[in-house]
């Protein structure tokens, strides 16, 4: 039995039809997001060369679940740190420096370092997992290389009669270029 490649929908999937708008101005992009939301659009994508609070506020997306990855990783790291230090001490009990076999204060250093290490690694995993998941859900959508440089962009999935309505809405908000993609 052949399993489908998990990245196929991202790399080779069919293009989602829709409208791509290129914006020069941030406030125009924010206006367009608000207009699109007020007309019932929810699944559009906004491109930006930098993170801006104005866009975050206009989009009002739910909080990223990455924080859960960090928390679980941190707790796991702390527990693993405590476990290795204590297990290794009791596995061959030998008194060192007049301290008890399982002496907690020196092991706090190991627990702390492992908390940070695992927390950081799971944060990275969390970002990769969540971004890949969202890209996979959206499928292949139109994009423009200017979006990593100096232009903002909005892609709205649309077909049939929707296209002209979305195009005129985006133009009214100040899009400098609108194309059917």
């Amino acid at each position, binding site marked *: 039995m052949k399993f489908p490649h998990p990245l196929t929908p991202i790399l080779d999937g069919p293009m989602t039809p829709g409208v791509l708008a290129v914006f020069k101005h941030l406030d125009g992009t924010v206006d367009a997001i608000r207009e699109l939301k007020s007309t019932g659009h929810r699944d559009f994508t906004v491109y930006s060369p930098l993170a801006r*609070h104005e866009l975050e506020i206009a989009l009002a997306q739910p909080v990223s679940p990455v924080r859960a990855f960090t928390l679980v990783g941190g707790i796991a790291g702390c527990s693993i740190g405590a476990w290795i230090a204590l297990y290794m001490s009791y596995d061959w009990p030998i008194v060192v420096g007049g301290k008890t076999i399982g002496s907690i204060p020196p092991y706090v250093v190991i627990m702390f370092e492992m908390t940070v290490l695992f927390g950081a690694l799971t944060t990275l995993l969390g970002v990769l997992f969540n971004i890949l998941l969202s890209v996979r859900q959206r499928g292949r959508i139109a994009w423009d290389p200017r979006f990593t*440089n100096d232009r903002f962009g909005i892609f709205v999935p649309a077909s049939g009669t929707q296209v002209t309505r979305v195009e005129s809405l985006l133009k009214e908000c100040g899009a400098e270029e609108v194309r059917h993609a």
Partner: protein
Amino acid sequence: MTMTEIRAPDRAHEGLTYDRVTRIVARTLGNPSRGYYVLLGSAVTLLAIGVICLLYLLRYGLGLAGYSMPTYWAIYITCFVFWVGIAHSGTLISAILFLFRSGWRTAVYRTAEAMTVFAVMTAGLFPLIHIGRQWFFYWLVPYPNQRGLWPNFKSPLVWDEFAIGTYFTVSTLFLIMGLIPDVAAIRDVATGWRKKLYTITGLGWRGTNDQWRHYRPAYLYLAALATPLVLSVHSVVSWDFAMAQVPAWHETLFAPYFVAGAIYSGCAMVITLLVPMRRLFRLDEIVTVHHFENLAKLCLLTGMIVCYAYTTENFVAWYGGPTPERAAFIYRAFGRFWWAGWTMNICNAFLPWLLWFKKVRTNITALFVISFFVNLGMWMERFVIIAVHLTGEPFEPYVRASYNATWADWGIMAGSFGWFFMWFLLFVKNFPAVSVSEVKEELPPPRRAVAGAARHA
């Protein structure tokens, strides 16, 4: 009202546009100039000297290093602590100043972060060189030996291994995370083989709202994790000494003293690297005098803490009870290695006072010269703490041997500088040395209202 609306835009970047920032950073990745090749060639030559000395050391053993009873920690451990210290300001600038929303960091943090990663890479070599039988390096890994005995987790050397391992991993992750949007920005203006390189290393970044939504909090969490890590790593390094009974090592002051010293030397190294890089890559528009002044202020703050620490430890040695402690400090000031002790005092405790003057802080040539002497002083500080205090320790008065570093010691130390600068130079020529997306965050965003007003003016 959002945070960006409250915060005034960074005046240092007046007149820049988003496109201009991308182009300036992309320009640094063009064909290397002759000056770049001269610097890279010098670094590789130094590295070659170090490698030859290391090969001799491998062949003839640690007898080739200048160890003599009771000085068995010397140049290699000095270099280890020096390079770990250099690494610290990188994470300070990238993580702690990120949490403090300090806008000026955006122009310099990539340099500092890259410096951190390569400095830890350099530092990591020295415990391996120091152990003598490098092919048994894996004995450092916590696994039981043939008799089932595990490492001693009460030993600061084991803490140090965990601290440095974690620090290297986390600072590398932090560097890579920051690079992703910037590599993507360069990818979209690059051509040829570089476009292929950045297409792979950009990891498919397109700047969608979904990507930013997960990326920004993750960056914040990494910064939040890295912040206590910065403070912990050099504290743990200081405990390698402070947990021992050697006079002038056994001090509770050591952790904050080492952390302040580390950030002091690290900021100086950022200045040492940024001055030629700014000129070589024509980054004057992005890295301005304002940034150098802020780095100098950081140097001033940490330099004052170092000065205070020196005063305190000398005072405690004089005023406190134990005579060995007093003997150690007299040896530091007037013993055989008086020159090292006074170089350290002058460069680290007296030199930063010059930075109180704005004229000095805003003079890039002066800062470059001061940064060189700070690095010299901080290397000497570690040499004094480690080699000098071991040589002069008063517990074994029957030992009359003195410590003399050999050509192998100096060669390997020179090689470490070559190794560090080689990686740094290769990095800045192949990856964006200044953050593209974060410098853009400091610029006023293009707005229709502003554009309209300008047209009607």
